[in-house]
């Protein structure tokens, strides 16, 4: 390097920097676009908004009376928003707060049910990070009716629960100071 002038050295340094930052950005954005998951409601999915085979998140309410257990840990239930329903298939342990009538978010892919041949959402993970007074914000938003004021959710509190002392949603995710 000793043969190079100061200016050339600086140019080389800038070049290395640009290549490095460019490489890192490329890496980052590739990983980003590959692993980004969009959030849908059952209505969106039935309207064909999602690509077949892509991993995505589906949010909605677990329809009352729809939960059916098969052998082992296999579970089938129906997830619904205000208008449409979507059958969901899952194998594994349900979260503590999973209940019929509650809002959940499922991560998985759109597929065909091997038993019934229907279009089914095959979930690999189910989240129900809420207590009685709280539900995932995406779900809450997706359950609002068109005028934005009411919710079709069959339980009391989408906005602020009146009986909650603080008037704010109390959630493990919000208050766990794991920062």
């Amino acid at each position: 390097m000793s043969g190079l002038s100061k200016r050339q050295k600086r140019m080389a340094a800038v070049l290395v920097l640009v290549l490095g930052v460019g490489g890192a950005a490329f890496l980052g954005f590739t990983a980003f676009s590959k692993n980004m998951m969009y959030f849908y409601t059952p209505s969106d999915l039935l309207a064909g908004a999602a690509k077949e085979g892509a991993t995505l998140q589906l949010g909605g309410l677990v329809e009352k009376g729809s939960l059916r257990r098969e052998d082992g840990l296999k579970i089938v239930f129906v997830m619904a928003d205000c208008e449409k329903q979507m059958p969901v298939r899952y194998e594994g342990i349900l979260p503590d707060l999973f209940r019929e009538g509650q809002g959940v978010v499922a991560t998985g892919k759109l597929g065909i049910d091997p038993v019934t041949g229907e279009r089914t959402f095959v979930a690999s993970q189910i989240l129900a990070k809420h207590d009685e007074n709280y539900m995932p914000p995406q779900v809450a938003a997706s359950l609002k009716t068109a005028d934005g004021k009411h919710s079709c959710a069959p339980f009391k509190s989408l906005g602020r629960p009146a009986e909650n002392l603080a008037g704010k949603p109390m959630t493990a995710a919000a208050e766990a100071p794991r920062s």
Partner: protein
Amino acid sequence: MIPELGHFALILALGVALLQTLLPLAGWRRRDARLLGVAGSAAQAQFFCIAVAYACLTYCFVTKDFSLLYVAENDHTQLPLFYRVTAVWGAHEGSLLLWVLILSGWTLAVSIFNRRLPADLSALVLSVLGSVSIGFLLFILLTSNPFTRLFPVPAEGHDLNPILQDPGLAIHPPMLYMGYVGFSVAFAFAIAALISGRLDAAWARWTRPWTTTAWLFLTMGITLGSWWAYNELGWGGWWFWDPVENASFMPWLAGTALIHSLAVTEKRGLLKSWTVLLAILAFSLSLLGTFLVRSGVLVSVHAFASDPARGMFILIFMAVVVGGALTLYAIRAPKLVSGDSAAIKLFSREGLLLLNNVFLVVAAAAILLGTLYPLVLDALHLGKISVGPPYFNAVFVPLIAPLFVLVGIGAVVPWKRGDARSTWQRLKWPALAALLIAVAVPFALYGRATVVALAGGLLAAWTVIAASQDVWRRVRSKSSLLDGLASVPRAVWGMTLAHIGLGVWALGVAYVGSFGAEKDIRLQRNAEATVGGYNFRFNGADEQNGPNYKAQRGSISAGRGADIALSPEKRFYPSQGTMLTESAVDAGLLRDLYVSLGEGFDDGSWSLRIYVKPMVRMIWFGGVLMFLGGLLAASDKRYRLVRAAERKAVAGATAVA
């Protein structure tokens, strides 16, 4: 009465913080030693006020004074005393009070240990810390007052969030805050240097122990947090890349970069400008973390928008602090630093340290992108997305792997100019040894290997061996082993230990990922399952009640001879109507057996989540080693001796003047 006293003490603290900020600044402008001297006493008075306020709130929690809204929300008559004390920081208001308590504690420490520093620099540092304190005290008093009364007074509290009722929680947030807030000292030193123009090797030497101390607390906080999540959340993972975790990890990466660039600034007087920028960056990321966790923006961007007082306050505060600091930097830094960085050769210790900084900062930026991008999209109504662990792993691993290679090379390359030939001579045997170990260990322990295990093992062994070389060479150059060990300075021990910790951590990560086994399974009473070569027999579940919860306790006999008893629980906390999974772990040096209960079925069977986690302890053990390394490095004699010498020099100069 007591709550009002606490509230009053907080208001008083705000007044004192104002004095602590303004008077020393005025003193610095007018060169008035008396005004400069106010800084120290103000810092001490402020600490006293905030400690009184904090003690008042703790008193209210211990005595279950439900006339306070915050206590009523987070306390309960059935809550054990220990958790009543830790519940003080269990939610928003109290954790902010802890934040300012720790900030004033750091300020107090600076006012005590900085007596040896030049009076103007020390006073400016305290002034900057005072201004940060003003921001947070205003935030508490205006938007998040823990002493707000509640009427009518409820007979029973809402209870502490059950997930926080765990001993791991008791120490982990204070540790994290010690780290977070500790970077404010490095930040204050950076701003003071920009204002006073005193930006030299001595400045770096004064800043180093403070930065290392903040870093070691943050390291321990993150380690404890990871351990707590593993034990408490029942998912068997040690890191989830969730935004709350990222909020603490970004300042850690920036702080790690800062520690390394401070070394260059102290030893070679180079990279000054970059070091100052990193100090600003590390503290800005701490503030950003506080914003993310405390504004409610993570729960929902729109929840934040509908109740914007808190979030907006932190956002504006952040804009003022970060914007102000960067503006000052843009104006002052070019005047203070001559074009020294051109003198750096890439193949030298400072060059490699610079490279280390680039990787660390880019890694922090990648995590920042993944954390903020979904929030920004949602805020602009461009769709709801989430970025899962696959993104973070895909970006983080290739950015962090080169650092392990650098650690080994950096340990043998001298300052100023390295020589490829002698570097290779010194490193060829460590490289070969690392390769042999990386291949031999997985086959010996597990009879198989994966690419990840081989690569991770290679990096881990390489880091441990190469990092130990420095100590080894120093010892070998002395006549006896004891002489040699005694001659190694604490700073070198600290660096070595921290780098070994990094290697140990990598080993844990690679082996858990490669040889871990997991199974979700439904078991009848007395039925067995085999996971990862271990047997698990389910002996049934029975009822078992605690002080403030009802529980179902499962009984499992695990291990090759079914001789280890595990009793995971499913708890129900009636006060909050919450279910909680309490997993059972049999911890071992080489493997953990981990079981948590899913749900009970009508026929008496239960669904169980079973994990076998080889070497998972190494992950936290690595963190503990880094913590200890930091402790050794921060307590190096050198800082105290040099300071004493400098004090003499300063005193002499003053006498002459």
